[in-house]
Each structure stands twice: as C-alpha cells, then as structure tokens.
C-alpha cells in the first residue's frame, strides 16, 4: 500500500437521531442532508425523543435545552426559570434564520425531497403510545431495530 492511496469514499450512511432537543436534532439532519448533497445514500432513523423531529404536532416546537447544557454557559438555575428555554430557542432560531438554516419541519421535508429514507423506531413508538398517523407523511415506515440494520447494511451508522 502506498502513502498516496486514497481511502474508499463513503457511499452510504444511516443516521440515528435519538434526542428531542434543538441541538440534539439539527446535527443529524445536517449530516443527512450533507450526505445526500455528496451523492451518498442516506437514511434517517428516529428513536426515543428524536421522534419529536417527525411528530406532526411537535416538530414545530422543538426547544433548546437550557438546563443540563454546560455548553450554553448559563447557570442551571437560570436555565430552569420558566420562559428561558423558549426565549433562548427563539434567539437560536432567529440566528439560524439569518444564516438561512431551515426550521426543523422545513429541513425534514427538504431532506425527504433529497430522497433520503425516514424511519421511526418501533420500540419508541410503542413506548410513547404513538402510531403512524402521528408522524409527518415523509416517514416511510415504523421499523424494528433488526429492520434498521438491514436497511443500514453496507454503509456507515452514525448515532446522534
């Protein structure tokens, strides 16, 4: 093997979104969208609180975590005051809008339009007492972990 040998490019990714906060959802969406833009096959798998990103009634109300989020450099007690999370979320959304980063509902729809697959985790759907109808139409199916691994076969898996 020579020093100049280039590693094989990534051709397929499966991205798991497991968190329901603003900062928990965006990275996975950005990676999925970026993968499609590079011509990779991409699938998104939403599990646990990550399901909120595709939940019809909730995906437009995703909040930034202001408690238990040291990266925010805000005292925990301040982050817990009613309204702080809403205000910080509003501020963050405003900043993102200025940078032309789409809102979560718009972003999810856009990623579906790129041809990425979207799936909800069956165990979490059962746990939260949800059904297919609770999710946006872009969600193709509610699948088991085994089915997820089948879909993810031959690609990289990214957990967020």
């Amino acid at each position, binding site marked *: 093997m020579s020093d100049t040998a280039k590693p094989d490019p990534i051709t397929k990714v499966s991205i798991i979104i497991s968190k329901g906060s603003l900062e928990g959802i965006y990275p996975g969406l950005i990676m999925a*969208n*970026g993968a499609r*833009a590079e*011509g990779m096959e991409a699938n998104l798998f939403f599990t646990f609180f990550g399901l909120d990103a595709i939940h019809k009634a909730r995906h437009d109300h995703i909040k930034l975590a202001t408690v238990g989020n040291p990266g925010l450099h805000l005292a925990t007690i301040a982050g817990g005051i009613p309204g702080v999370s809403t205000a910080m979320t509003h501020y963050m959304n405003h900043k993102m809008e200025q940078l032309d980063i789409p809102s979560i509902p718009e972003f999810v729809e*856009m990623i579906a339009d790129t041809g990425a697959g979207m799936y909800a985790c069956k165990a979490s759907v059962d746990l939260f007492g949800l059904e297919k109808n609770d999710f946006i139409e872009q969600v193709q199916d509610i699948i088991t972990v085994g089915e997820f691994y089948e879909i993810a076969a031959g690609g990289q898996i990214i957990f967020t």
Partner: protein
Amino acid sequence: MTSTTVAGVTVDRNDEGFFTDPDQWTEAMAPELARAEGIDEMTDDHWRVVRFMRTEYAQKGTGPTVRVLGKTSGVSIKELYQLFPKGPAKVAAKIAGIPKPRGCI
C-alpha cells in the same frame, strides 16, 4: 491539479475533477463533462441548473448549495436530485466548470 482534455481543449482540474480556472470552461464542454458524471443527455433542465451555477458563481464567487438551488433556481429539490442523482450542487458545479460549492446546508 492535472491538465486534461475536454471537448478537444486542455483544461486544468483538481483531483476531484473541478475546474481550477472557470474561465477555461465553454458550453461545448458540458455534454462531455456530464457524460463523465453518468448524465447521458443534457436536457433543458440540466442546462438551466448549469447556467444558474455559472451566473451565481460569476456574481458571488461561489456556487450555490442544494438548498440555495432549490430556493432560487426555479428547480425543486426533488427535481434537482432527479436531474443530478449524485448530488445536484456538486455535480452541476463540475459540469459548469466552477469550483465545488462550499456550505453545510
């Protein structure tokens, strides 16, 4: 950077195949560049996107991302991926002879 011949003309491209000097590009090169990307025929819609890439690059010094293309080119995201399955902004930039658009979204 390597020199290659496209439509009978010698041009400079980087390792990924993007033109390093967009001024070396001519429309006559597009069909051959497209074929190398698996696009057998440049339809009117392909041309629309490729010309849009050129215009945006000329105006802003950088090619648009897929999101920007979807919002401003008049071609939807769905259609863009049908036209350029291997990545609309990336492949259209390659065919349009401009550098790879940089942008995360």
